[in-house]
């Protein structure tokens, strides 16, 4: 073993592109938050600056924490991965028992006027713990036991968060399937995951009976075209039965387990219910705002729609409306392309890591960011259910900005070490 060099941070080793993209999104988000609350007149009525004022503070805090992360020895994250995971789980349980209720969910801790959401921090903690476990010596994802343990590590925080009524955040943990795919999960799992998501949505739109019949018909058709040996028949029947049970239980969950506000949000999206004041109203107004932007938008601070009645979520979950309205099609496409660029860069960084730990963590980052990007913009455009999850780096909200900053900066820190890695290694 070669003695490892002193692992100081070298500025040139930081991935500057990622950092620049990060700041473009953060500062751009700030401008959009400002735009979404901006009023040209009426000082009498409007209390200026609450949201973006707070956001400036949060950007400051996040930059400071980010800097600290860059200064920490990168072994720290490896050494404390399990501890951080344990702390996150403990916090989740604590908040479940005594958290403050806010916006229909029970998942916030209040510290000096700022609300924190442990579920946000559970994301990177879980990513670190998974990276450490799967990156371990002689651990192969193809082993059954390894699969069970790693999936258990994902399901534990997911379950607790579900109990807090934060369905959206819980679903984020499902995105780790992308990382598992990279680490050896067979490709058809991705396909099955996609099917499960599709069936879930279909189960809510189409009466379950039709869906079950459709599944049966497809199964029979498949039997006609494949070789009918005992094993194949069993597999087809098993899969069909599993889907039927799944469809039935999705419907049952929806009718009996879900809270009223979640139900109505989903119903509105599916066109089963008209709720102009609630979720449907937001989506409707969101579409009007984006649609009215046209090719080039109305110009910064010139938007009219997003200021209107877009109640509390205008600067958090529906921030993309501001982009759509004030910067138009050009701005929106630019935004999406930039986001894809960031995602590509994260994947690129992940893949160039020499250590499994770093690589797995990198894929986790990409997966989480991608999931948020998809769900958030999808709901703003009215093609996915209104699940209240923010757009990373861009939405208003300290808890989410801070946690995404930590998530990303840990990756930057791990990556910055790759030059040292050429000479030394863990152990």
């Amino acid at each position: 073993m070669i003695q490892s060099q002193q692992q100081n941070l070298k500025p040139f080793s930081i991935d500057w592109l990622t950092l620049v993209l990060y700041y473009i999104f953060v500062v751009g988000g700030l401008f959009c938050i400002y735009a979404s609350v901006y009023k040209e007149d009426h000082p009498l009525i409007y209390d200026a600056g609450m949201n973006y004022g707070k956001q400036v503070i949060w950007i400051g805090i996040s930059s400071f924490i980010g800097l600290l992360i860059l200064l920490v020895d990168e072994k720290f994250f490896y050494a404390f991965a399990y501890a951080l995971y344990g702390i996150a789980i403990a916090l989740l349980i604590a908040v479940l028992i005594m958290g403050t209720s806010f916006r229909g969910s029970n998942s916030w801790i209040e510290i000096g006027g700022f609300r924190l959401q442990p579920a946000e921090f559970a994301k990177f903690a879980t990513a670190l713990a998974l990276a450490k476990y799967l990156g371990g010596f002689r651990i192969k994802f193809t082993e059954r036991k390894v699969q069970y343990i790693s999936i258990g590590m994902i399901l534990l925080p997911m379950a607790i968060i579900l109990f807090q009524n934060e369905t959206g955040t819980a679903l984020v943990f499902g995105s780790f399937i992308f990382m598992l795919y990279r680490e050896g999960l067979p490709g058809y799992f991705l396909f099955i995951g996609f099917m499960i998501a599709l069936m879930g949505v279909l189960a809510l739109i189409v009466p379950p009976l039709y869906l079950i019949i459709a599944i049966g018909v497809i199964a029979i058709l498949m039997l006609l075209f494949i070789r009918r040996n005992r094993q194949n028949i069993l597999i087809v029947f098993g899969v069909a039965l599993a889907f039927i049970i799944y469809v039935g239980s999705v419907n049952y969950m929806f009718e009996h387990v879900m809270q009223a506000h979640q139900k109505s949000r989903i119903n509105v999206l599916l066109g089963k219910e008209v709720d102009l004041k609630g979720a449907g109203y937001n989506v409707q107004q969101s579409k009007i705002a984006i649609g009215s932007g046209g090719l080039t938008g109305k110009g910064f601070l010139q938007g009219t729609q997003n200021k209107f009645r877009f109640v509390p979520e205008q600067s958090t979950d529906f921030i993309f409306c501001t982009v759509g309205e004030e910067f138009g099609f050009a701005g929106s496409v630019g935004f999406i392309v930039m986001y894809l660029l960031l995602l590509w860069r994260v994947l690129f960084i992940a893949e160039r890591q020499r250590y499994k730990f770093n690589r797995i963590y990198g894929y986790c980052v990409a997966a989480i960011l991608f999931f948020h990007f998809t769900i958030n913009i999808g709901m703003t455009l009215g093609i996915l259910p209104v699940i209240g999850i923010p757009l990373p780096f861009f939405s208003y909200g300290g808890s989410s900005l801070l946690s995404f900053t930590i998530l990303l900066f840990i990756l930057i820190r791990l990556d910055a070490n790759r030059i040292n890695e050429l000479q030394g290694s863990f152990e």
Partner: protein
Amino acid sequence: MDSSVKRTILFLIFCVIGAVFIVRLVFLQLLDDSYLRSAQNNVLQEQTIYPARGLIYDRKGELLVYNDAIYDLTVIPEQVKNLDTTVFCKVLGITKNDFIAKFEKLKRGKGYAPYRPSLFEKQLTIPMYAAFQEKLFDFPGFFVEVRTDRKYKHSNAAHIMGYIGEVTDRDIEQSDGYYRMGDYMGISGIEKTYEKDLRGVNGVRYILVDSKNRTQGRYKEGTFDTAAIAGKNIALSIDQVLQDLGEQLMRNKTGSIVAIEPSTGELLALVSSPTYDPNLFIGRDRGNHYMELLRDPTKPLFNRPLAAPYPPGSIFKVLESLVGQQEKVLTPATSYACHHGYLFVGCHAHSSPNQLRGAIAISCNGYFCQVYRSIVNNPRYHRVEEAYNSFHDHVASFGLGKRLGVDLFGEGAGFLPPATYYDKVYGRYRWQALTTLSLGIGQGELGITPLQMANATSSVANRGYYITPHIVKAIAGKPNPNPEYNVKHWCTVDTSYFPIVIEGMQDVVERGTAYIARIPGIEICGKTGTAQNPHGKDHSVFFAFAPKDHPKIAIAVVVENAGFGATWAAPIASILLEQYLTGKHDTRPALVERMLNGNLTHRDDSIPATKSETF
């Protein structure tokens, strides 16, 4: 190289999602211009359509409560532009400081949002409303909302009607989003009990307005609008004529009248005196009127028939006669001698001895003290407490000592002491019949509300059961809306013990203490009472039902500080019985005149009672 292929696959998936978004944007932003038009029309405005509140009728279909238009000034703060505050304040008759204060207050209100209408000034006067309508275009962001307030046609039955008032922050929170700042809801009386039926369902209208606040039309042709659903009309069981006559007879007197139809439990009249005009509780000055009434020393807001506890006096003798027979310590032939009372309980002069029927007719205190003693000292029970508890339970089965469950708020439970109460006062095993002897004539620690008194009378009239008294007869034309009010509550005294007691009660009116209440041609069964009052002159009490067979009405009258039952309570009850049963009350004009003009308010309540006066 397998791994970088996987990376490429993942990135392709990301790009597919991005492409889907871009395609969607093409449709939203480039191809479909309906969103652009929606946006040009600018602002979606939500208007609440308030439904008409349900009307209230009496049992015969006479209208009691209806609605009247009022005008509220609301504001959508973020639409206020270039407001000439001087002119504005002049129209409204306020100062500029008031204006700022009002805005500050409105901003602190629950559910405030700059884009949502908030109540700025409620109940504009008609001239103000007219002036405002003229200048409304000068005041963008301000609107006059029309809604309705209550009007009381007969200015009576205030305690039954209750009133409606503005919702509080707590009501808004508890209503699960139904009520909003500035909404009205029932605060007491029937308005409160049947709020959900009376209020109907608010409707919503979405309209588009341009930046100058001019209406551009309905949003999506009104697809999302919901119509208001009018409140349900309610028919009360009250007889408006009887109620009104009762209130007139009680004028300048303090007390209560409760009349019940025994076979249904429907309340025919519920008078609380002194009372007030329910029309005081509407309009801009409702708050001031409320404070005045609250400070009034005669307590006009106190709902006496439901909540005021009185010692029951002679009603208890009737109940003892029934319980004594049920417990087999008394028969119609039981005879007790009385020489001006029994031990320390005095009695008036009368022939002696008497049997049960005679004792009821002359209301002999001595006789009923003996009956009470025999009940509590019943050798069937091992201990006095057991015998007393059995007595307590029998009496309670007539609805005493508990809330009956009338459909009005503010009902009191009264007080019927359980054995444990005496254990506490005297010590366990340290008391017996004689200790609690005053109970035998319905005095002492007992408290019974006029409602309970009338209900017990109704139980006697029904020969052994009662139906919970209630005031609603039909909701939206559907009779008997509450199934609870169809249930017979059986007393624990057998029906066969009632006739002899009822004979005695008839004697009371035909030739006994309540001769004054007699009406030729109507068989009235009643009983006078004198409720001991430690704070002043005794209360005059009378309860009765009529006719004797198939009773149509049971009534209890309490006139505070009015002395003997026969003096005030019995004639008032008699006039009301006549009115209800014959439809008029003109056979005894002198008596009616005397009752109507009787003024008992000059008496000084604060003089302590002298005990000797009681018996």
